[in-house]
């Protein structure tokens, strides 16, 4: 017999109530764990995808849209820019490198990106099989695309018009797979890469597409505008010096028909927007944890009244007041620890389930089997709530006047 076993015996004696307290705490902790895991991994993903890109230059429009479309490949592009403007920009001494992007088509929901080999090196991508593209109509597939489409080296496929599935197919000009990229954990895994010229040639050929694009430019902003020959969708720019960060965006935005947007700034803005929702849910989860603390407090406080004789008897059996204090604290901590452990398990498992589901439907890869730094703070906070809620009952136990309790009739 020791204090731990004594506390466990009391917890067992109130099994239902204890389970409820543990569950309440676990729900709060679990909710926060899910949020932490999601936001952390999403943030990591966003940072990884924009790593090495200091500035994106594209057509005028929403800067967030420009970043979403040409860095993360989720939104439709803001428009296209003339090749000569892009070429002129590349000669700017503030620019170290500029990777061209030409968007417009997709294959089974994966975007076909016309670019050069620098784009692959940006994400440290390497062909797992085959090689990178050299000639028009040669394509290299990201790892997820290859896995999803079950295409191998030498296979042919046709892109479809537009960035979502179900667009008109470019049957007249199939691509040939010449390379499959190794998984990189970046946006590269979900892209089909080819040369800018391939994209130009496909859209230069079709007679009907020209007409369609002409009215699109004016009337329908929800439809992606496709690259025409001698146009690019965006340039991914790396600065030559830190000074460029101060000068280049202003130069581009004020002096040309182009728009410059910073991925770091825009993703921070995006996370801020998402953050409001996350913070709301987090606040609810915190309330849940505080409720759990309150519930543990009420449980221990009530138990104390039922247990006042027990406490007095324990004193008469030789327990010091300090021992009773510790026994009650241990009881609170056992409940808190159980709640935290259960919450961590629930949170991670739920994240894994949601992540698997999201992966299938949204191609966003989030796993529950990882630990993020915020969790340690959460564990400490939840245990502190447990300790605090046990503190007052413990102090009351410490102060019990045993003679008075035992003399009660």
């Amino acid at each position, binding site marked *: *017999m*020791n204090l731990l076993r*004594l506390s466990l*015996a*009391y917890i*067992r*004696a109130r099994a239902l109530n204890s389970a409820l307290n543990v569950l309440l705490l676990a729900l709060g902790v679990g909710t926060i764990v899910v949020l932490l895991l999601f936001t952390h991994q999403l943030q990591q993903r966003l940072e990884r995808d924009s790593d090495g890109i200091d500035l994106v230059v594209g057509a005028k429009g929403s800067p967030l849209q420009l970043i979403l479309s040409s860095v993360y490949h989720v939104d439709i592009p803001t428009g296209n820019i003339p090749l000569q403007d892009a070429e002129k920009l590349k000669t700017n001494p503030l620019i170290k490198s500029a990777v061209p992007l030409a968007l417009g088509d997709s294959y089974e929901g994966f975007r076909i990106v016309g670019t050069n080999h620098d784009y692959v090196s940006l994400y440290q991508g390497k062909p797992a099989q085959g090689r990178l593209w050299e000639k028009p109509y040669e394509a290299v597939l990201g790892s997820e695309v290859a896995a999803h489409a079950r295409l191998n080296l030498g296979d042919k496929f046709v892109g479809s018009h537009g960035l979502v599935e179900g667009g008109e197919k470019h049957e007249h000009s199939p691509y040939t797979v010449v390379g499959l990229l190794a998984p990189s954990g970046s946006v590269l895994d979900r892209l089909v890469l080819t040369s800018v010229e391939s994209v130009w040639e496909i859209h230069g050929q079709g007679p009907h597409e020209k007409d369609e694009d002409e009215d699109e430019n004016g009337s329908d902003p929800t439809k992606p505008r496709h690259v025409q020959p001698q146009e690019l969708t965006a340039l991914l720019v790396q600065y030559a010096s830190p000074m460029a960060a101060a000068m280049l965006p202003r130069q581009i935005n004020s002096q040309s028909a182009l728009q410059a947007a910073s991925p770091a700034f825009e993703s921070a803005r995006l996370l801020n927007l998402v953050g409001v929702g996350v913070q709301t849910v987090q606040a609810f989860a915190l309330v849940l944890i505080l409720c759990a603390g309150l519930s543990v407090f009420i449980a221990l406080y009530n138990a104390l009244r039922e247990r006042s*004789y*027990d406490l*007095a*008897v*324990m*004193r*008469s*059996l*030789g*327990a*010091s*007041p*300090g*021992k009773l204090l510790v026994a009650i604290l241990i009881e609170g901590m056992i409940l808190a620890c159980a709640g935290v452990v259960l919450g961590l398990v629930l949170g991670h498992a739920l994240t894994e389930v949601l992540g698997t589901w999201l992966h299938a439907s949204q191609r966003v890869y989030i796993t529950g089997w990882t630990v993020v730094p915020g969790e340690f703070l959460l564990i400490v906070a939840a245990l502190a709530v447990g300790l605090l809620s046990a503190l007052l009952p413990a102090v009351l136990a410490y102060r019990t006047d*045993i*003679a008075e309790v*035992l*003399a009660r009739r």
Partner: protein
Amino acid sequence: MTEPAFAVKHLRHAYNGEEVLRLDDWSVAEGESWLVLGPSGSGKTTLLHILAGILAPTEGSVSVAGRALRELPASELDRFRGRNIGIVFQRLHLISSLTILGNLLLAQYLAGASRDIGAARGLLASLGLADKGDSRPRALSFGQSQRAAVARAVVNSPRLILADEPTSNLDDANAAAALDVLLAQARACNAALVIATHDRRIRDRFERQITLAGGA
């Protein structure tokens, strides 16, 4: 002559200025059994609490096994009580979350004595509770509970056993049995036994008695 199990000198206790206990000199040797008599409110329970070191008297001194309780620091007093004084409460107060054996082991643990499951089980067996060690107090009859409470009080072989109204809720046969158990256990540990009671049925069994008159 060995030192007394306990000795009381010039004891006075008052609640809110009203004197409830007055006892001048009382000394009890090891192995002696005493009855403390007196009507309700005469301070019997108060006396037991003072002897147990649960309550500090307003005036006077109590020494148990040669140690003056007043001079023991608080934490030492708790331990001293656990090791040397066994108390059987009127309402028993077995801890209901623990098994009967758990109650005995708790008494060993809290007194700072080494844990001895064999001795605890042996004690239960000697009180006819061999098969009750793993039961909860709720599952026991009153008579069994009372024997279990006696077992908990004597598990650390105390020098002094205090019992508060051990027979008041019992019929004649059971009252006699309860006394037998207390006397036998006190003899087994060579402990002094003090029973506070207003139960006239058991007066004849004790040679040594004191009567409290209550507040002056």
